[in-house]
C-alpha cells in the first residue's frame, strides 16, 4: 500500500507523518504546478470549483509516480466537497488507473473504520503517538506562520522571516520525534526573534476570511499573504489547518465557543448555516470591524456556493460594521497581475482611510 492524498498548504507534512507513524509508505504528490492544474482542467467537469481540479491533478501525478491508495475526505453537504470523491474516482478509473480510494467521512465511526483499513496491525499506543507527532507538527507549522505574518510588515530585509520559516519547515518535515520537533521549533523561533525590525511603525491590519482551501494553499491564492506582507500589511489569517482539525474533528471546547460567538455576530445577516465557512466569513468581518481592523479580504474559489452567498451579504456587513471588504474569487484564469492591481488599490484605500481618520481625530 503506497498512500497519497491531495495537497493543501503544509498539510502534506502532517499527513505524511501520520501515515508513516502508522507504518505506511507515503507518496506525496509533486508540488502543485502548472502541469498539475492543466491535468486537472483537462479531466474535470468544466464548471466545477478549482479545488476539485487541483485535486484531480494531484491524484494523477501521484498515481503516475506509483501510489496505489488515495486517502481523501468526504462530507454530507450541502457544500460540494462531500461529493467530490465520487466523481473523481470515476474520472481516474476511466483514465485507466488502478487504485483504492479511502474516503474519510466526518464521523468518528467512519474515521475509526478507515484507520483500521490503513493500519490494521498497529497497537493503540502506536496510533496514539503517530497522532501526537502529526498534530504537534501541525500546531508548530501554524504558529510559526502566524509569527511570520507579524514580522513581515516590520522586517528591515524583506523576505528574511519567511526564509527562516521555510528552513524550519524543511526540518519539521524530517523530525522524527517530539523532542526533535521541539528543538526545531525553539531554534526557528529564536532565529525569528532576532530578525531585524524597523521600530515605531503601525502596519495596516487586514483579516483574511473565506474558504479554507483557497486560504491554506498558496498556489490557489497566488501567495496573497506574502504580497500583503511585502506591502507592509499585517495579515490575520482567520483559519489555519489546526483550527479546522481542533474545531471540526476534535471538537475542542474553545473552538466550539468561538464558533458560537461568530455565529451570534453573523446572526443579523445570515441566520442559518449554509455549509462551508460562510457563517464564519461574516462573523469574523463583524468582529474585525469592532476590533478596529483596517480591512477584510474575502477569498474563495469561483462558483463556491456558500461563499457566493456570503459575498452578496458582505457589502451590507461592511457598511454596518464600517470596515472595507474586498472579495476575491480565484479560478484557473486568475492572473497575478490582476490580483496585484486590486490589492494595491485596496491597500491604498485603507491607508487613505486611516490617515483621514487620524486627521479627524486629534488624539
Amino acid at each position, binding site marked *: 500500500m503506497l498512500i497519497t492524498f491531495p495537497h493543501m498548504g503544509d498539510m502534506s507534512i502532517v499527513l505524511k507523518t501520520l501515515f508513516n507513524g502508522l507504518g505506511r509508505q507515503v507518496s506525496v504528490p509533486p508540488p502543485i504546478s502548472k502541469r498539475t492544474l492543466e491535468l486537472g482542467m483537462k479531466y474535470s*467537469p*468544466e*464548471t*466545477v*470549483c478549482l479545488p476539485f481540479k487541483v485535486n484531480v491533478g494531484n491524484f494523477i501525478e501521484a498515481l503516475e509516480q506509483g501510489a496505489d491508495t488515495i486517502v481523501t475526505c*468526504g462530507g*454530507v*453537504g*450541502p*457544500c*460540494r466537497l*462531500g*461529493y*467530490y*470523491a*465520487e*466523481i473523481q*474516482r*470515476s474520472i481516474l478509473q*476511466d483514465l485507466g488507473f488502478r487504485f483504492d480510494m479511502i474516503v474519510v467521512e466526518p464521523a468518528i465511526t467512519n474515521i475509526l473504520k478507515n484507520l483500521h483499513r490503513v493500519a490494521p496491525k498497529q497497537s493503540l499506543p502506536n496510533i496514539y503517538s503517530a497522532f501526537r507527532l502529526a498534530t504537534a507538527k501541525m500546531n508548530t507549522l501554524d504558529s510559526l506562520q502566524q509569527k511570520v505574518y507579524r514580522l513581515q510588515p516590520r522586517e528591515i530585509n524583506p523576505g528574511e522571516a519567511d526564509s527562516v520559516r521555510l528552513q524550519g519547515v524543511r526540518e519539521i518535515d524530517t523530525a522524527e520525534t517530539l523532542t526533535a520537533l521541539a528543538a526545531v521549533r525553539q531554534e526557528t523561533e529564536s532565529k525569528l526573534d532576532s530578525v531585524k525590525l524597523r521600530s515605531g511603525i503601525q502596519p495596516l491590519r487586514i483579516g483574511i476570511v473565506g474558504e479554507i482551501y483557497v486560504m491554506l494553499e498558496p498556489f490557489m491564492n497566488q501567495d496573497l499573504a506574502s504580497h500583503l506582507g511585502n506591502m507592509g500589511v499585517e495579515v490575520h489569517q482567520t483559519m489555519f489547518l489546526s483550527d479546522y482539525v481542533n474545531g471540526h474533528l476534535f471538537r475542542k471546547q474553545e473552538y466550539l465557543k468561538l464558533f458560537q460567538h461568530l455565529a451570534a455576530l453573523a446572526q443579523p*445577516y*445570515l*441566520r*442559518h448555516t*449554509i*455549509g*462551508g465557512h*460562510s457563517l464564519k466569513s461574516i462573523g469574523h468581518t463583524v468582529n474585525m470591524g469592532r476590533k478596529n481592523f483596517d480591512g477584510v479580504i474575502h477569498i474563495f474559489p*469561483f*462558483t*463556491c*456556493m*456558500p461563499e*457566493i*452567498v456570503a*459575498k*452578496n*451579504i458582505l*457589502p*451590507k*456587513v461592511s457598511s454596518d460594521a464600517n470596515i472595507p471588504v474586498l*472579495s476575491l*474569487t480565484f479560478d484557473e484564469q486568475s492572473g497575478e497581475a490582476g490580483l496585484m492591481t486590486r490589492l494595491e488599490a485596496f491597500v491604498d484605500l485603507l491607508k487613505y482611510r486611516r490617515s483621514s481618520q487620524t486627521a479627524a481625530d486629534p488624539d
Partner: protein
Amino acid sequence: MTVRIGIPRGLLYYQYGALWERFLQGLGAEVVVTGDTSKATLDCGSVLDDVCLPVKVYFGHIYELAARNVDYLFTPRIISVAARQYCCPKIIGMPDILHSNMEQLPPLLDINVNLHQNGCSLYQAVIAAGRRLGKNPLFSLYAWHNAWQNHRREQPFFCPCRTDRQRIGLIGHSYIIHDHQISMNVIDKLSNLGFEVITPDMVSLCQAAAAAKTLNKKIFWSNSHHMAGAALTLIQSTPPVDGLIFMTSFACGPDALIGELIKRRAHALNIPCMLLTVDEHTAEAGFVTRLEAFTDMLSRRRQPC
C-alpha cells in the same frame, strides 16, 4: 381586510407553488403571484454578483412584488425537504440575500422548513406561518392538510411505453426548464422538432429514488438527487430514451458534479447526452443550432443503415 401575500415565480415555486397558494388561501389570504420571467426580471436580478441565473431571476421577481403593494412576501427558508438531504446553499441563504440587498421590503414570511433531521419541523413551519397571519395552530394545520391532499393527488408516474416519436429526457431543475425565459422555450422547441420530451417531474419520487440506489453515495441535495434518479430511470428503462439533454445554468454548483455523473452513466449505456449551459447572454441562434445538431444525430441513429 384580507392580507395580500406575494409569491415570486422562481426557484422552488415550480415545485411547490400550487401547494403554497392553496395553503395561503386556506389561511384566508389573497395571493399574488408574479408573471412569467421577462427580460426586465433578468435585468433587476443582475445586481447580484456571481450567482446562477435562477437566483437572479428569483431576485427579479421579488423586485416586481415589492412594487406591487403586498403585505407580505412569501419567501420560506427551505433548508431541507427530506431526511439527510439539503437544498442548494443559495436557496437556503436566499432570505438573507434579500435582506442584505434590498431596502424597504415588505415583511418576509421567511419561516424555516428543515426536514433534515426532524419531519415534524414542517408542522412547526406551518403553524409559524399561520401565527404570523394571526391564525391559531389548528386552523393552520387544517389549511395545510387540505392543500397537501390536492398536491398528493398530482403525483406523476413514468411509464416507458413505446411511442412512435423519439423520446428525449430533458434533465434540469424545474425552475430552469419550465421558465420560458431561462430555458428559451426548450420544451416547445424540441416538441416542434418532433420529439417527445420527458422531464424529471414526470418521474415519481419513488421511481427516481429507486434508480438512484445504484449510485455509490447518496446525493445530498434533494433536487439533484431527484434529477439524477430521473435521468437514471430514463436511461435504464426498457426501452430507454433515445437521448438525454442536461440543461444547467452557468455557475450552478451542484449541477457541475451531477451533470458529469449523468453524462458518464449515459455514455456507459451508449445513450447520447448533451450538456446545455445557459446564462443571461445565451444567444437564441446558437442555442437552436445546438438543439438541431443533437436531434439530427438522434434521428440518424434511429434509421437503420
